């Protein structure tokens, strides 16, 4: 007699995972294939953990976002926020779609130039730009948004050195959210932004051509963007009247959410994440009411990162162990740690099973594989039975996890891109030689080798 296929025995107390007023329970449909390939085979070939980029989806994210804004505000340009994920292949794909580069350091600026992005398609933001970096940016025609008075002074010095008036943007902030984003730029309500623009214009060495605001990160309340757009319009109206400033651009920054549920949210992102059309619908009509005629509308820049790259990248992990905790809760340990999934501090990631394990789910704490007590990937997830060696897929991990990853205890995983049925390795798995290539052991420290052999 043929034996029946086996599923690990489970018993689950009825308290979680049921339909309630906040939404439906998480799906337990197995995800045996990713980007058209068997998950098992991908791991077999490229190792686990593994990041998988679906190129088509990345292009679609870009096109959808650009369409949403440019149909409502024709002079829209999208500048990709490099810090979200500056793998060269990803930046290249987005540039091929028409994205400019939004960089926040000389390192990122260099990546963009190395990818042959012309300087005049680079926006240079951030609170810390060195004099050398600023010199290069101005010389190559990049848009520079100034963050503080020290930077204004440095740039005035540069204008003297370069013998010309330099066009600049000014980053502003407003009291829009809690906690307020006051770290960056000059506050409008306190009058600092007006003082800064006046100071720049009266200096005669720089010329304000743009206003930049970035309202936060993962901002899923479109009203915050509406308030920011209204603030920009009234501020522009004021500095135009008072100081004669004529803007060439306004830059609404980024912060647009993706379909990942925040740790503290009681509703799934499936319900709360606005569409790109909803963002565009509140921002664009307000800006179109700005103080300009039909022929001289400032360009609108938006600087999405998360909204472009989060969803097209998934991670495949492998279960390495499981245990029963005091109190009866199940713990599952996987081979990826928080060092390669740093966004676990913000997100309740979905962990999708790959094998068919039935529909019975159990409250589970998911641990990363690092030998560190804080390495918890999710405090509570409704998971069906899984076993050592089985895989779990974590969708939507493309934002920040790669650029913020740190090498710790284990080597960092490979990144593959699936494009039109073809697989490309866009970042190889690290090797020990790669990790240690900048290190040296001075000869004096090597005596133990000969002594230990005695």
């Amino acid at each position: 007699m043929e034996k029946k296929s086996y599923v690990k025995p489970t018993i689950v107390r009825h308290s979680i995972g049921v339909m309630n007023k906040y939404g439906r329970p998480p799906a337990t449909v197995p995800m045996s294939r990713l980007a058209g390939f068997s998950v098992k085979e991908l791991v077999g070939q490229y190792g686990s953990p593994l990041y998988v980029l679906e190129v088509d989806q990345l292009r679609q994210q870009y096109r959808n976002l650009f369409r949403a804004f440019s149909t409502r505000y024709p002079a829209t340009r999208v500048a990709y926020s490099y810090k979200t994920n500056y793998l060269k292949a990803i930046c290249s794909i987005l540039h091929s779609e028409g994205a400019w580069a939004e960089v926040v350091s000389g390192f990122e600026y260099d990546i963009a130039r190395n990818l042959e992005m012309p300087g005049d398609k680079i926006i240079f933001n951030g609170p810390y730009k060195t004099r050398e970096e600023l010199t290069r940016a101005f010389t190559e025609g990049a848009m520079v948004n100034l963050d503080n008075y020290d930077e204004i002074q440095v740039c005035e010095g540069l204008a003297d050195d370069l013998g010309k008036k330099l066009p600049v943007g000014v980053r502003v902030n407003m009291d829009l959210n809690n906690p307020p984003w006051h770290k960056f730029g000059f506050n409008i309500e306190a009058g600092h932004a007006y003082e800064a623009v006046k100071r720049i214009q009266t200096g005669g060495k720089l010329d304000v051509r743009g206003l930049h605001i970035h309202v936060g990160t993962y901002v899923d309340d479109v009203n915050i963007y509406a308030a920011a757009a209204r603030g920009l319009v009234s501020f522009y109206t004021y500095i135009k009247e008072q100081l004669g400033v004529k803007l060439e651009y306004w830059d609404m920054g980024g912060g647009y959410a993706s379909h990942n549920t925040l740790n503290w949210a009681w509703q799934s992102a499936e319900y709360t994440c606005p569409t790109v059309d909803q963002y565009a619908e509140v921002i664009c009509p307000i800006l179109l009411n700005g103080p300009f005629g039909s022929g001289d509308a400032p360009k609108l820049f938006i600087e999405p990162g998360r909204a472009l790259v989060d969803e097209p990248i998934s991670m495949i992990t492998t279960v390495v162990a499981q245990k029963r905790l005091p109190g009866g809760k199940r713990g599952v340990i996987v081979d990826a740690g928080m060092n390669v999934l740093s966004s676990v501090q913000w997100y309740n990631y979905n962990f999708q099973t790959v094998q068919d394990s039935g529909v019975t789910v159990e409250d589970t704490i998911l641990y990363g594989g690092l030998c560190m007590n804080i390495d918890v990937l999710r405090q509570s997830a409704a998971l069906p039975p899984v076993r050592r060696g089985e895989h779990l897929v974590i969708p939507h991990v493309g934002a920040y996890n790669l650029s913020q990853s740190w090498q710790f205890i284990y080597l960092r995983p490979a990144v593959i891109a699936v494009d039109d049925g073809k697989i490309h390795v866009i970042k190889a798995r690290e090797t020990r030689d790669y990790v240690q290539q900048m290190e040296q052991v001075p000869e004096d420290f090597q005596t133990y080798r000969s002594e230990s052999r005695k």
Partner: protein
Amino acid sequence: MSEIFSSELTMSKNGFLFDHGSGLTYTLNTTGQLIFNLLESGKKSTQILEKLMTEFDVTEDTARKDLDDFYRQLKELGLIDQ
């Protein structure tokens, strides 16, 4: 280990378990149901292990490990006495 179930438990054919004493309810998957029924009929751990290996395509190592985990769960839920 000795497995003595509370007499106040009733399980339906599709694995819905009701504890008359506490009012709590549980769901067992098919493997869980089989083990539960065997425990209720007084079978010992070794007999249950054998039964699993006869019925299912499973190695002894896996079945033993899973059974141990299942017993730990039942104990934590207060459904079996030690």
